[in-house]
């Protein structure tokens, strides 16, 4: 197969399960598409696709691929409606451009927000090709149909390839309200189509941001103030400049950069800089100060998020439970450290950025350089993980400023240490939970007061109040039917840069809520599954996934001593998830044996990618629950690499069994909903195994 397709360098060989091999081509940058001597006519009724007169169908992916599979899932939507063979599609990554609508790749939105627009794009093109063919044959369009890249005349069986229709279709008005396919006729959506990016990645041929090389490029490293909010007072570059390969030293807004002939020499040059820092107003802040800021509010009520019944009423025989939960700052730590290639020339800049937020990179870089957005081009590269970190454009601004200040094209590469220390972190939080159950074991009261910094308040709107902030995510609109309920919140400030981390506050609040529901179940003398089930309405999709998770995990069957199961549910991103963790604890050593995860995400575009996302979410959430945390000392981050910010390892990964609910509800997100239920399922399982309730993450058993 490889030989047959040598004409294209970026060929993908992928297979569909149960079928033969399927090819899909993927071209990382627009400019590589042009081939010498080719001058095909292009039919492009939408910004998301083009068909040339040779019949080549190019799908433009406007969201960023960071491992979550959009480069496969989004083209599937177009290919389905366009009636074109999957293997004939070329996939192209879009640059930053407002014409695509939002390109921000976060919030589990890529598939669910584009489910309709991309299918409409495919269907519109199909309809225009159909009309073009009908016109050529002088028949009614109802006498024609689209199939595998051809329009077929039903009566005569004559065919036109899409390529042959490109010119005529281009002249037609773009039809409105085209009919989308009935889901029962789907040929691509719902199939285990193999990912288009796998082969190049495993062969080492994929170009991530860090792999980009452009002509005349140098390598840059940057020294930043170890305390957040500090700045350069003065610096001496003599030593750095005397080192091999060092070419230039420039100061930018965020520190001092060294430019060299290789990454290694840039790192060494940077280490040799002598910088006198003004450590800023936060130079003495530590984790304890930030914790104390939260502790201060524990006994307060907080701003009201939700209220029903009366949690202060007196009820005969009720049994009270109270607990405080806590989670720490967390780093994204994607395997590929932050980096960006930038080339500033004559008032214009071109960037190659592993960014989840290309339009933001474009506007932020324009602002930082004082040029118009029209003069900023952002090419989006593959990303070695994102998890929210690359929604912030700091690394692109740095590269842009270094390129402008030095007058050179540069690739800025962060070391792992810098990636750990200069991130935007998942905020910490504390949670006051109070509740009661009746003597018959029914829930009576539920109170949750969440205390956390708000990302939106810290970054965008200093006046934002708790009730309008996003810290309520995962606290309100619980489906549990508890008669008396009160949810409140308090915002605390932090000087530590905070940002979106996979599932954001849904990585925090559900841990507290679903763990505490377990505490209530225990107080009620009820099985945690039954207790939840009885609180959920019958038509609840959450109840359905809960029931399936219990059944599939063997809930209620006997386990050996030292083993335990925990269950938890989560809703969000228009999806529903239940997880059952099975753990063993021997001599205080925790082993996570198995996770059973059930997801209802409505219509499924690619079940294999959904399963990947669940498996990955569980690994990611287990890392946060069991391993690393970010702590602060002297105003900066203590951790510096994967030895002091540990993540889950191969031998620690549980078996993960994923079950996907089949239905035709609106398509939901799958990247984050699997995070929320993981930590509470784990900790509830630890409780079942040991009787020890984990209320502070990461889990410490001794």
């Amino acid at each position, binding site marked *: 197969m*490889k030989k047959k397709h040598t004409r294209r360098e970026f060929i993908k*060989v*992928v*297979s569909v399960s149960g079928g033969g091999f399927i090819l899909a081509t993927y071209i990382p940058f627009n400019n590589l598409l042009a081939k010498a001597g080719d001058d095909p006519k292009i039919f492009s009724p939408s910004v998301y696709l083009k068909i040339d007169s040779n019949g080549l169908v190019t799908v433009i992916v406007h969201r960023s691929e*960071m*491992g*979550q*599979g959009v480069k496969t899932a989004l083209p599937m939507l177009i290919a389905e409606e366009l009636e074109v063979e999957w293997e004939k599609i070329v996939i192209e990554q879009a640059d930053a451009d407002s014409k695509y609508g939002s390109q921000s790749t976060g919030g589990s939105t890529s598939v669910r927000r584009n489910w309709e627009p991309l299918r409409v794009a495919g269907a519109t093109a199909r309809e225009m090709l159909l009309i073009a063919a009908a016109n050529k044959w002088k028949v009614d369009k109802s006498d024609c149909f689209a199939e595998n890249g051809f329009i077929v005349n039903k009566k005569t069986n004559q065919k036109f390839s899409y390529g042959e229709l490109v010119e005529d279709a281009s002249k037609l008005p773009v039809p409105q309200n085209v009919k989308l396919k009935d889901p029962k006729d789907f040929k691509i959506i719902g199939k285990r189509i193999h*990912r288009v*990016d*796998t082969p190049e*990645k*495993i*062969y*080492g*041929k*994929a170009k*991530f941001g*860090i*792999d980009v*090389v452009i002509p005349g490029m140098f*390598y840059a490293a940057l020294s930043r103030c170890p305390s957040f909010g500090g700045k350069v007072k003065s610096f001496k570059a003599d030593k750095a400049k005397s080192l*091999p*390969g060092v070419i230039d030293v420039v100061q930018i807004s965020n520190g001092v950069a060294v430019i060299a002939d*290789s*990454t*290694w*020499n840039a790192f060494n040059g940077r280490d040799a800089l002598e910088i006198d820092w003004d450590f800023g107003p936060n130079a003495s802040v530590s984790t304890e100060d930030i914790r104390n800021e939260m502790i201060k509010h524990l006994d307060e009520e907080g701003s009201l998020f939700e209220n029903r019944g009366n949690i202060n009423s007196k009820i005969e025989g009720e049994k009270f439970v109270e607990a405080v939960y806590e989670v720490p700052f967390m780093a994204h730590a*994607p*395997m*590929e*450290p932050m980096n960006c290639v930038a080339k500033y020339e004559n008032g214009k800049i071109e960037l190659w950025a592993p960014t989840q937020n290309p339009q933001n990179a474009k506007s932020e870089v324009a602002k930082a350089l004082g040029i118009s957005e029209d003069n900023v081009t952002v090419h989006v590269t*593959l*990303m*070695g*993980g994102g*998890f929210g970190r690359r929604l912030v454009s700091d690394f692109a601004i740095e590269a842009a400023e270094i390129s402008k200040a030095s007058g050179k094209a540069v690739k800025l590469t962060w*070391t*792992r240490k810098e990636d750990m220390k200069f991130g935007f972190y998942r905020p910490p939080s504390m949670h006051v939970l109070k509740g009661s159950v009746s003597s018959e074991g029914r829930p009576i009261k539920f109170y949750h007061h969440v205390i956390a910094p708000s990302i939106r308040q810290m970054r965008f709107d200093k006046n934002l109040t708790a009730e309008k902030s996003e810290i309520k995510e995962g606290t309100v609109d619980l489906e549990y039917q508890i008669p008396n309920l009160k949810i409140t919140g308090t915002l605390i400030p932090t000087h530590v840069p905070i940002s979106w981390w996979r599932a954001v506050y849904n990585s925090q609040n559900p841990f507290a809520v679903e763990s505490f529901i377990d505490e209530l179940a225990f107080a009620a003398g009820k099985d945690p599954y039954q207790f939840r089930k009885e609180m959920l309405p019958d038509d609840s999709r959450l109840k359905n996934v809960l029931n399936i998770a219990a059944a599939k995990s063997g809930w209620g069957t006997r386990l050996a001593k030292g083993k335990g199961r925990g269950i938890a549910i989560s809703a969000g991103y228009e999806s529903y998830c239940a997880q059952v963790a099975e753990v063993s604890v021997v001599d205080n050593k925790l082993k996570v044996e198995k996770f059973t995860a059930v997801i209802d995400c409505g219509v499924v575009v690619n079940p*294999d990618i959904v399963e*990947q996302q669940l*498996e*990955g*979410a*569980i*690994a*990611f959430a287990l*890392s946060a629950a069991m391993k690393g945390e970010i702590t602060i000392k002297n105003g900066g981050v203590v951790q510096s*690499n*994967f*030895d002091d910010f540990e*993540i*889950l*390892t*191969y*031998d*620690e*990964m549980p*078996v*993960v069994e994923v079950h996907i609910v089949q239905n035709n509800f609106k398509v939901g997100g799958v990247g984050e909903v699997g995070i929320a239920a993981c930590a509470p399922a784990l900790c509830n399982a630890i409780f079942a195994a040991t009787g020890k309730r984990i209320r502070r993450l990461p889990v410490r058993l001794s």
Partner: protein
Amino acid sequence: MAKFNLNINNRNYSVEAEPNMPLLWVLRDKLGLTGTKYACGEGICGSCTVHIDGNAERSCVLSVKDVEGSSITTIEGLAENPDHPIFKTWIDLEVSQCGYCQPGQIMTLAAMLNKSSSKEEIEREMSTVLCRCGTYHRIRKAVDKLVEEK
């Protein structure tokens, strides 16, 4: 700067580099072999794994001066045979997500399989290669399949 003669993927390269420059950066910045990934720089995570005379080694902590005369294989070398059972299994089972650590995972496993390492040795070695997307579950399936087929 000094000149080093390196044998990489059965080809001879002559490169000029600082003697202490890690092989990783020679591969990436000097030779354009970017399949070998930088992730931790301290030999902790395994993303930069290459074969030195058949052994899986971390190129981020190996100085170029110490690998002269060795036979070096990178992921690009292994991928000269795209039908290698590891690649086929990785595609069949769709192991990769972001893909960044996968060359390191594959190079580590390839060295172990070549040496017919025991299951315990493979378990130990694979547990030192980090993945943030959480592809471990599928890596295990791939490892089990490959060990069984061997």
